[in-house]
């Protein structure tokens, strides 16, 4: 895999290079740069398969590099020290990211995933999706990218009835009666979707309040969804769920 590293700090570039050379032999580093303008040129010049992109670069962001490119047919692994804003959108697009200092295992995973994706898809729609998301305010997100085994599904939040934990996976129940299994934990989606009104009713349940039909008093706390499913509400969540449903 041809790779390009973009980071405004020389030490980070050095570090990443060292780690990749040591742990990811399938990656060939074509070039590194600390500068955004350079980055655009280098990408166009080398047509890399994989770009390691720092999010916070001085007063600019790695996203600016993406915006400046006419075509984005490569995989991106974002690298960031600390950036709430960017990370949220990246998560919605189901893109990969690494946190500094870099965890070697996470790095290997991310590279492997990228390799897998490169084999299955031609154009990276996720990056288009990401750039779209970035234009909107965080709570106004209407779609989420769900990484399935061999494809990426873009699902409207209004389509999601509920999510259920399945070990480290999360199963999405859509209004079309379709079920999607995603290899991320329910907690991640709970954090991601909370600003959009989704409610964690239970350790293994996240629901879209739009689909709540009624609150069944029997057996403590059970929500009846319009789909006819009964979802348990655990004791610690009762208060917040009740309050949230009253505000609807």
């Amino acid at each position, binding site marked *: 895999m041809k790779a390009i590293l973009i980071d405004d*700090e*020389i*030490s*980070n570039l*050095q570090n990443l290079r060292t*780690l990749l050379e040591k742990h990811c032999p399938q990656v060939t580093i074509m070039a590194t740069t600390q500068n955004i303008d350079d980055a655009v040129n280098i990408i166009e010049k080398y047509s890399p398969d994989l770009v390691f992109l720092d999010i916070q670069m*001085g007063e600019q962001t790695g996203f600016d590099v993406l915006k400046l490119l006419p075509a984005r047919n490569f995989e991106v692994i974002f690298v960031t020290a600390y950036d709430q804003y960017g990370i949220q959108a990246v998560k919605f697009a189901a893109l990969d990211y690494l946190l500094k*200092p*870099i965890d070697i295992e996470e790095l290997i995973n991310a590279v492997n995933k990228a390799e897998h994706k490169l084999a299955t898809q031609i154009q990276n729609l996720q990056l288009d999706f990401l750039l779209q998301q970035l234009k909107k305010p965080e709570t106004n997100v209407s779609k989420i990218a769900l990484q399935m085994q061999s494809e990426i599904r873009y699902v409207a939040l209004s389509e999601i009835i509920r999510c259920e934990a399945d070990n480290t996976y999360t199963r999405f129940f859509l209004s079309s009666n379709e079920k999607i299994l995603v290899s991320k934990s329910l907690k991640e989606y709970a954090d991601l979707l909370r600003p959009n009104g989704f409610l964690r009713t239970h350790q293994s349940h996240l629901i879209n309040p739009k689909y709540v039909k009624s609150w069944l008093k029997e057996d403590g706390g059970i929500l009846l969804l319009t789909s006819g499913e009964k979802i348990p509400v655990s004791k610690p969540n009762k208060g917040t769920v009740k309050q949230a449903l009253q505000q609807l």
Partner: protein
Amino acid sequence: MKIKLNVMKKIIFIFLSLIVAVSTVNAQKGINFNSIYAAGGKLLMHVDSGARNVFYAIGFPNQPRTSFNYLPDVNNVSISINFRKNINIQHYRYTILADNKPIALNKPINMTQLKDTHAGGDEEIFSSATLGIFPVKGKIITTLIYSIDKPQDIDKAVFYGKPIPSAKILSFSMLSKSDQIYSTSWVKDPKGSTNFTFTEKDLQLNIVKDKSDIDYLYYTSIKDKKNNKIIFESTTWRYGGIISEDHEQLPFIEIDKNIFKKSGEYEIIIQPSIKWTSCFDCDISPKETEKYVTRHTLFITLAEENYTKKELYSYALMGTFVIGLNFLLILNAIKRRNKKRLTVAEQQKNTAKLQLNSIRAQLNPHFLFNALSGIQNLMNKNEIDNANKYLSKFARLTRNVLDDKELISLSQEKTLLDDYLQMEQLRFGFKYEINCSENLDLDNVEIPSMLLQPFVENAVKHGISKKATDGIIVITFTKQANDLVLTVIDNGNGFDTEKKNNGLGLQLSNSRIALLNSIYKENRFTLAIQPSTSGSKISLTLTDWL
């Protein structure tokens, strides 16, 4: 033969000299001869069978020989006279008037008609004669009986078959005295209520009533409306002095003005001396009896209020209490307000400190993780010694951030900035120096911790990070008179002070300065930012700090 014993006993009990006779005369004109009422003096009466509300033998103060019988429901009354055996009946004369016109005049008792009777249960035997049966409905029958032995002692009994009229107040008069001269002022034909103002020269208030044949029946009371207590009562009417248009002497009562202790509302009540509940088979509703009552409201104003000693004491006590209470309340309010002010100030200070702490904690994450990344790089490059050096610098910085220390010495701040800049140097490779005035006691002068760090971070981030090895940062600690001046100078691109969101660091610094000023009120912190194209200078002055 049914005798109403209860009635009888009552009669005997009340009028000891009374003789009760039971007539055996057949019922005439519907009269119930089985029940007897005392009618005053030597008289007894029988009334219609079934007649209710027979108010009999009502006597009056100072009128020992007058008896009054009110018979509103009675059509006919049979009157009999009863003599003890030792009485010389032949000396007795009687006069009977119907509506003031004589039916019989000074007639002797018809001795042939006399019968022996005795009151029910009583052993004594009386001689009894009937004076007649009289229609009484709408009429007044009056009997006058005397013995020629004592012609002045005339027993008068009134059998009142008309409705008793309510009294009418014709006028009020006020008697006043000034300079030995008495004068009277009048309020004529008062309606409903009257206002009076009593001054020192006013003596008494007179109430003049309309003249009637039964003035003695009416008694007058005055009620204090504030507590509904009767403050005056009189059964006595005086005559003379006040004469009506048709030359009749009008009844009046005199009321000493001193009965009115207070200004306020009073009520004059004039009503017949009839106890409406005290008769056999009474059936008169309060609404009905109210028709007999005359009421008149007086609004009295006293030029000088009278107070009893008790009242004075209680007023004094109340006054003291009220003043004391107010005093306590005011004291309490002041105390509470002071306390509140103190707590508010304390709270503000606490909030400010908390905010300061949170801002302090916010300064670092981006730097912290990048610094760690830098150390990771050293490790991966096998620069173990350097990795160790920077790791301990990183630890020292982190410790300081985690430490809740409010103040640190200048030398500590210098060390921290040194550590920080060395870590940043690792990332960006610029040059820097930290200069201190020689006349500064670095070890003993203390400043709020992490005061300069955000400015230095800013200098690194926006100033020289792009210039790499050409960048220079100069930090100085200077003493200027009593002020401590801290400056951070860089040779970067400078920045626009107009642009508000010039990085999180600077924004935080501004709010930090504001917070510091709210905590250390006596020392003012001033921040001066001088940006230029060839770099920027930030100077922070701690006024009167040294």
